[in-house]
């Protein structure tokens, strides 16, 4: 019984996004990220997996222009990114809702910032809230929501615009498997209609395999690209894919790779 959400069509096409030889060091600390080069083709969804604390969120922050690399460049369509040049939506690892706004208000934030009319905003907020299963909680304040609900509001907020670049930092981590799968599928559907290039951080390999066309496995201390796994399944993908043998196999392989390449020093 999924609600159809009628997003606006994106005007341009999705951009190419590249991280080139990125290194990162905080003030006087150790090098966190060392010479990471990753790129995503227009419309591609690239997953980043790696041990906790390796630097995934930091990479996304650099992609978003919220943090500056110590070395290397972030390029969009071949141009160095300046913080304001491309529509970017970022689902932070924690929901980052504004406590004084209701669910509706929070979902509407990007639309208000974009100067959308009240009518459009309300309509879209309703659709999106329904989509993430919060249609009956529109007037709740964040403190009245469960952790998973907050993340879903955050998801709805990010998708209320049709961004060119979508950065997702474990958006489904706090959700139960069923809600998670459903939202995964919805995201794939959305991908057919909206044009964005996405980076997706997750700890679930099967989610990564299901959603993305490539999985970048990062090692830790410092983060380096340990290995890259290409997911050969064609789009559009459906829920049934998960039950296929190839899928299961690839998940197992990817798990192996992650285990071998990224956790050396922890073992």
């Amino acid at each position: 019984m999924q609600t159809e959400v009628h997003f606006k069509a994106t005007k341009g096409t999705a951009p190419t996004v590249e991280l080139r030889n990125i290194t990162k060091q905080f003030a006087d600390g150790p090098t966190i990220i060392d010479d990471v080069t990753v790129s995503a083709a227009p419309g591609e969804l690239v997953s980043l997996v790696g041990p906790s604390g390796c630097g995934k969120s930091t990479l996304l922050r650099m992609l978003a222009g919220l943090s500056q690399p110590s070395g290397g460049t972030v390029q969009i369509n071949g141009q160095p990114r300046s913080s304001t040049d491309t529509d970017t939506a970022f689902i932070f690892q924690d929901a980052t809702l504004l406590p004084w706004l209701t669910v509706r208000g929070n979902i509407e934030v990007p639309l208000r910032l974009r100067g959308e009319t009240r009518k459009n905003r309300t309509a879209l907020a309703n659709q999106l809230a329904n989509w993430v299963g919060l249609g009956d909680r529109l007037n709740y304040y964040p403190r009245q929501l469960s952790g998973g609900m907050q993340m879903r509001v955050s998801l709805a907020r990010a998708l209320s615009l049709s961004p060119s670049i979508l950065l997702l930092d474990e958006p489904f981590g706090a959700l139960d498997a069923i809600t998670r799968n459903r939202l995964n599928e919805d995201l794939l559907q959305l991908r057919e209609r909206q044009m964005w290039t996405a980076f997706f951080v997750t700890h679930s390999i099967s989610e990564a395999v299901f959603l993305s066309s490539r999985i970048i496995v990062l090692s830790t201390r410092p983060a380096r690209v340990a290995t890259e796994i290409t997911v050969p399944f064609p789009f559009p993908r459906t829920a049934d894919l998960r039950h296929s043998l190839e899928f299961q196999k690839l998940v197992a392989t990817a798990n192996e790779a992650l285990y071998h390449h990224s956790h050396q020093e922890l073992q």
Partner: protein
Amino acid sequence: MIPERCQKIILPIAAGILILSLWSGIKAWFQLPAFLLPGPSEVLQAGWNERHALTTATWTTFRGAGLGFIMAVGVGFCMSLLLVSVPWLRQGLYPYIIFMQMVPIIATAAIIVIWLDVGIQSVAAIAFLIGFFPVVASTLQGLLSTPVQQVELFRMYRASRWQELFLLRVPASLPYFFTGAKIAATLAVIGSVTGEIFAGSSSGGGGLGFMIIIYKSSLRIPALFAATFICCILGFIFVGTVLYLKWLALNKWHDSLRNEDV
């Protein structure tokens, strides 16, 4: 147990009764004469006798303080917005805002009276000067304390400075703002009374500060206490208004108001 609502009314009243009896007690114990500490009944009596004069005076002070308070909150708030949006202005100007605040009322009063002449405008100006800084200090702290993540969210969506200010920083700073406003409310009344003492005039009926000076210089201490008491009540109304507005603005989402049962 007594329901919470009642407690909020009963407790202050109980405390009031306690304070009153303490007052009477001290007076009786030390055998203090009326010119040092008049008894509650003497004060009440004096207040009643002077009711006409005090009513006009209260009204005058109320206007002066109200005008000053509204200006302090309004200008202070706008100034904070300005200072938070323009960092170089903040760095350049903030020291002088602090500076200006240090000018003792007695000196300011003299200068203000020279410039603005005696009257409500001077009184309001003094109330304004004294209430202005607390609003700026508090609000600015609030505006600067907005969680970094929320600011980044707005930057992500390429919010204009304007939007970042009004849709994010301002609501996030409200708890701080109201603290500043509460302090300004307290200071507005005391400021305007002090202002009247130093800059007031009896033309058009002096305010409470004027009455206080008159009572003091004719040794009518119970009446002085009555006038003082009215100052307190007046201030209380100001603070009460601020607290009510704060409740309206914050009760839905802020911890301080759901935390009352600490």
